């Protein structure tokens, strides 16, 4: 078969359709026939076009990942460093506060125990009625013991109250675990995001794009104030909060 015969075989029917549509003034059929011919003529064109679109999309995705990575490197990483430094400061302060209170309470408890033991010893000796102690067992003999008890009780009370207050402060100092925990969680979130951005970038470089999960995170509350990182109007303490709320009529 000559090459023209092949062409005739391939295109003949389409050209006939086209001519028929032209004669019948059928616009729909006419364009359908034209499209058909174009498709036959340029089979590779659409594949190329699709590939080009895919490449463009990949480039855009890559660009968005790289832009986010640059943002992470420029802003989020230094922020995370400042947050973690603040965590160290808070844990350090809480540990020292706790240790201070323990160091302060120990001697108070020891003193109470020691003086109670001394007093107990004196009373035991007094009651044992050892011969020779007869004179001491009179009311007069009781006076030194009573004076010791009188001195001991208020001191024991003051010391115990101080130890109780210190324990309450130790309790409160443990609040650092909640606050630092919240900050560490926010840094973990950033690490996760960084990991997924890098993984996606690696996939794109390998030409194997799947699903991108950048920027799909749920909105988060700012969490504990971190000096130098937290932006916007922030209450600096309970007094600020109270002033703001009383301004709102609370």
């Amino acid at each position: 078969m000559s090459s023209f015969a092949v062409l005739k075989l391939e295109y003949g029917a389409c050209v006939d359709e086209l001519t028929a549509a032209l004669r019948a003034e059928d616009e729909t059929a006419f364009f359908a026939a034209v499209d058909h011919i174009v498709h036959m003529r340029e089979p590779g064109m659409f594949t190329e076009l699709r590939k080009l679109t895919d490449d463009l999309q990949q480039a855009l995705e890559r660009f968005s990942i790289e832009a986010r990575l640059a943002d992470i490197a420029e802003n989020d990483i230094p922020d995370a460093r400042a947050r973690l430094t603040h965590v160290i400061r808070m844990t350090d302060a809480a540990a020292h506060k706790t240790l201070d209170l323990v160091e302060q309470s120990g001697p108070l408890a020891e003193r109470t125990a020691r003086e109670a033991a001394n007093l107990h010893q004196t009373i035991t000796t007094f009651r044992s009625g050892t011969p020779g102690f007869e004179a001491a067992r009179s009311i007069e003999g009781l006076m030194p013991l009573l004076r010791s008890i009188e001195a001991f009780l208020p001191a024991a009370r003051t010391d115990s109250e101080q130890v109780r207050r210190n324990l309450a402060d130790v309790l409160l100092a443990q609040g650092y675990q909640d606050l630092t925990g919240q900050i560490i969680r926010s840094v973990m979130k950033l690490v996760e995001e960084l990991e997924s951005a890098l993984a996606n970038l690696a996939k794109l470089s390998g030409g194997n794009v799947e699903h991108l999960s950048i920027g799909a995170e749920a909105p988060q509350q700012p969490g504990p104030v971190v000096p130098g990182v937290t932006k916007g109007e922030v209450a600096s303490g309970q007094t600020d909060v109270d002033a703001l709320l009383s301004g709102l009529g609370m």
Partner: protein
Amino acid sequence: MSKDLKFLVVDDFSTMRRIIKNLLNDLGYANVSEADDGKTALPMLQAGGFDFLITDWNMPGMPGLDLIKAVRADAKLSKMPVLMLTAEAKREQIIEAAQAGVNGYVIKPFTAETLKEKLDKILGPGK
């Protein structure tokens, strides 16, 4: 009598729940239950018996603000006193909480005195 009040303390950190529970015990409130987020707390509140809610804001599952909105929207719970105890300190957040209907707002870190003062203020004199 008021010392019989039943508290629900909602915070995702167990250390903070223990701290608040201990402070409440020190103040004479012995009846304290705990929940780790709004989703756990809401059914407990709806089951009844609680007189006072102390909640954190930032929690996974159901945040404290959503819990407060749910409490205020529930006819049986709408009058319950609510104290928010949170690290969230942004001005707009405090206003948002006030609009949601909190009775008090304490920021972390806080002191035992602050907690007592806010409780006394919410519960009224002599309580």
